[in-house]
C-alpha cells in the first residue's frame, strides 16, 4: 500500500490556516527569504531539477515553461495563475484556495520572483464564492504585512497581485482563452505559436500556471529537489492532489505521491464503491480524459503510465461509475457539457459536439440507428486534433473510450429501442 502524503494538504485540517498569523506560525511564507537570497535563474533551475510538471492537466514541465519566457523584450513579464478550475470531476484547486489561500499567495510571490515578474494576476472562477472571499482576504493580509507591494521584506523585489474573477466559461481554463478573457475579450483560444511565453498577456512574455503547481513551488524551495523527487516516479515526481468522486463511499481530495495506483485511491482512500456496487468505468483526469475500466485499476497514476494505458492523467480527477450507470447516458451528459462549453471558434468542435449530443440523445431515447456508432466515431475523428485547443480533443474522450470498452451497450440501445437501464440515475434534463 502507498502511504498518503501531507504536503499541499498539510494545513487543510488546521481550520485557521487562512489567517495570516496562523499561517506564518505554521512556517508559512518561509520560502520568501530562501528565494530572495538566491538568484532568480538559480530558482528556475531548481524547479527544472525538481521535475515539477503542471498540475492543471497537460503535465508540461513547469521549469521548462518558465525557461521559455522571452528575455530582454523591453516588455514586462507576467505571471497568471489559473484558478479557473472547471474540469468535470475536479475540485482540488478550490479546496486548496478555501482552506490554505496563503499557500497560493506564497507560491505566487516566489514564482514571480523566479521569473522576474512584478505584476501577477490570479484568474479565479466566478462561481466559487467561498474561494473568492478567502483568496481576496489572503491577498489583502499579505499586502498589510508587506509581503506584497513594494520592496517585499527589504528584498528590493516589487510585486502587485490582482485577483480577477471569471464569469462562467469552462474554456477560460485553457491558457490562451484565459488570457483573452483577462484582456476583456470573449474567452476564445488563440493559435500557437506564438506561445504565451513569447507573446501572452498584453503581447508580453507570460506564463500561466495552475493553482496546485504554484502552491508546490514554495515546498520545493524549502525542502529541496531530492525531497520532492523522493515522491512519485522519475518522470512524474512529487505529491499530487487526487479528486475522487462519483460512486464511491467517501468522495474527496486525497494527497498521494504521483504513481499511486487508482485502486488504492478508490478502494482505500475513498472507502471503496458506494453500496458495494461493482465498478464499471473511471476517468483518471476528469471528463476530458478517456475512461478506463476495472482492468486498469492497478495502473500507476502518473503521466506516462496512464498514457500507456490509453488515457491521460489530466487533473488527476477520478470520476467513478458503477455498473448501474448507463454509459450512453454518461456520454450524453458529458457531451452536453462540451457542446455547451465549446467557445464556437473552431468549426469541428462547435458543430461536432452538437452533432454528437443530438446522436447520443436519440440513441438514449430509443431512436438510435445502427450506423450511429460509426457516425459518432467519424465525428470524433474529425474533431480530434482539428481545433485550436484541447476542448475538442477532450470532447471525444468519453465517446471514443465508451465505444472501445462498452460498444455492446450502444448496440443494446439500438436493438432494444431504448435505454436498457430504465430508471437510470442520470437525468437528461430538468424539463
Amino acid at each position, binding site marked *: 500500500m502507498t502511504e498518503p502524503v501531507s504536503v499541499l494538504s498539510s494545513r487543510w485540517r488546521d481550520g485557521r490556516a487562512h489567517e495570516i498569523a496562523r499561517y506564518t506560525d505554521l512556517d508559512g511564507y518561509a520560502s520568501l527569504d530562501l528565494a530572495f537570497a538566491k538568484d532568480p535563474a538559480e530558482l528556475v533551475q531548481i524547479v527544472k531539477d525538481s521535475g515539477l510538471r503542471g498540475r492543471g492537466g497537460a503535465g508540461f514541465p513547469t521549469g521548462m515553461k518558465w525557461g521559455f519566457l522571452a528575455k530582454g523584450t523591453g516588455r514586462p513579464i507576467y505571471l497568471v495563475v489559473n484558478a479557473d478550475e472547471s474540469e468535470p470531476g475536479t475540485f482540488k484547486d478550490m479546496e486548496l484556495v478555501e482552506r490554505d489561500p496563503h499557500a497560493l499567495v506564497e507560491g505566487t510571490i516566489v514564482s514571480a520572483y523566479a521569473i522576474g515578474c512584478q505584476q501577477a494576476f490570479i484568474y479565479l472562477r466566478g462561481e466559487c464564492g467561498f474561494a473568492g472571499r478567502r483568496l481576496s482576504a489572503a491577498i489583502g493580509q499579505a499586502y498589510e504585512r508587506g509581503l506584497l507591494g513594494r520592496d517585499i521584506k527589504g528584498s528590493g523585489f516589487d510585486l502587485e497581485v490582482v485577483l480577477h474573477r471569471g464569469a462562467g466559461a469552462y474554456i477560460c481554463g485553457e491558457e490562451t482563452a484565459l488570457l483573452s478573457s483577462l484582456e476583456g*475579450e470573449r474567452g476564445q483560444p488563440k493559435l500557437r505559436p506564438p506561445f504565451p511565453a513569447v507573446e501572452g498577456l498584453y503581447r508580453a512574455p507570460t506564463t500561466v500556471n495552475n493553482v496546485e503547481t504554484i502552491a508546490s513551488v514554495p515546498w520545493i524551495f524549502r525542502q529541496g529537489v531530492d525531497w520532492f523527487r523522493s515522491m512519485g516516479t522519475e518522470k512524474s515526481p512529487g505529491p499530487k492532489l487526487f479528486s475522487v468522486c462519483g460512486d464511491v463511499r467517501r468522495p474527496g481530495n486525497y494527497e498521494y505521491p504521483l504513481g499511486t495506483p487508482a485502486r488504492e485511491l478508490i478502494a482505500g482512500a475513498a472507502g471503496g464503491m458506494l453500496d458495494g456496487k461493482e465498478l464499471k468505468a473511471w476517468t483518471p483526469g476528469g471528463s476530458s480524459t478517456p475512461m478506463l475500466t476495472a482492468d486498469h485499476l492497478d495502473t500507476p497514476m502518473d503521466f506516462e503510465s496512464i498514457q500507456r494505458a490509453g488515457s491521460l492523467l489530466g487533473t488527476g480527477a477520478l470520476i467513478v461509475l458503477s455498473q448501474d450507470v448507463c454509459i450512453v447516458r454518461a456520454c450524453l451528459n458529458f457531451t452536453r457539457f462540451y457542446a455547451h462549453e465549446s467557445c464556437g471558434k473552431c468549426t469541428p468542435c462547435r458543430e461536432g459536439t452538437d452533432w454528437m449530443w443530438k446522436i447520443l440523445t436519440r440513441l438514449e431515447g430509443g431512436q438510435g440507428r445502427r450506423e450511429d456508432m460509426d457516425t459518432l466515431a467519424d465525428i470524433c475523428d474529425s474533431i480530434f486534433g482539428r481545433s485550436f485547443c484541447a476542448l475538442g480533443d477532450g470532447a471525444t474522450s468519453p465517446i471514443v473510450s465508451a465505444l472501445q470498452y462498452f460498444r455492446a451497450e450502444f448496440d443494446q440501445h439500438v436493438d432494444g429501442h431504448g435505454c436498457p437501464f430504465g430508471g437510470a440515475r442520470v437525468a437528461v434534463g430538468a424539463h
Partner: protein
Amino acid sequence: MPLTEKTLASADELIARYPERRSALLPLLFLLQAEDGYVSPAGIAQVAGLLGLTRAEVAGVATFYNMFRRRPVGKYLVSVCRTLPCQLRGSGEIAGALCRRLGVPPGGTDPSGAVTVEEVECLAACDGAPVLQVNTENYERLSKDEALALVERLLRDELPPPTLAGDGATTELSTASLHWRLAGVGDPPSELAGRRPSPEGSGGELP
C-alpha cells in the same frame, strides 16, 4: 445612468488597476449587473463609453459568459449542477422539482423576483454532490425535499447558512451584493443587500 456617480468611482478604480483599460470589462459588467440586475442596454452603452469600445464589442463579450444575464435575476440565484457526478446523486431531480415549484423553466425567475433557478455545469465541488448554490455559495448533499425546503425559505426571504458555514463561508445577501463582490471592489454597499430587481428590469433585453 445605470452606473451611478458613486459606482463610477469604483469603475475608475477598476480601469486604473490594469495595464490596459479593456481588462476592466468583465469587472465593469459585474458592477453594472450589481446596479441593474442584468447587463442592460443602457449599461452596455455606458461601459462601452468608459472603455472606448463599441456597444457591439461589449455585448459580444457579455453574451459569451454564463454569469452575465440578459434578463433581471432574482434576489437569490439558485444554481443546480447538472454535470455527471452530481446527476449520479440526483441533481437532475432536484432541478426539475425546483423548476416545478417556481413554475418556471431553468433560468426562470419566480413572479416575486425572489428566486431564479438555473442549471449549470460542474461547480468544482463534486465531493459534495449533488451541489446546489445560492448566490455562488455551496449547499451540498441536499435531498430533493431539503432543496425544496431551502427554496421555500428563500421565497420567504430567509437565507439559511451554506454547507461550509462552520468553516467561515457565508452567502451573499443578494445577487446585487454578489455581483458587486465579483467586480472586485471590496465589500458590497449595504443598500445592495435588500435589492430585488423588478421582473421587468429597467429597459428591456439586449438588442
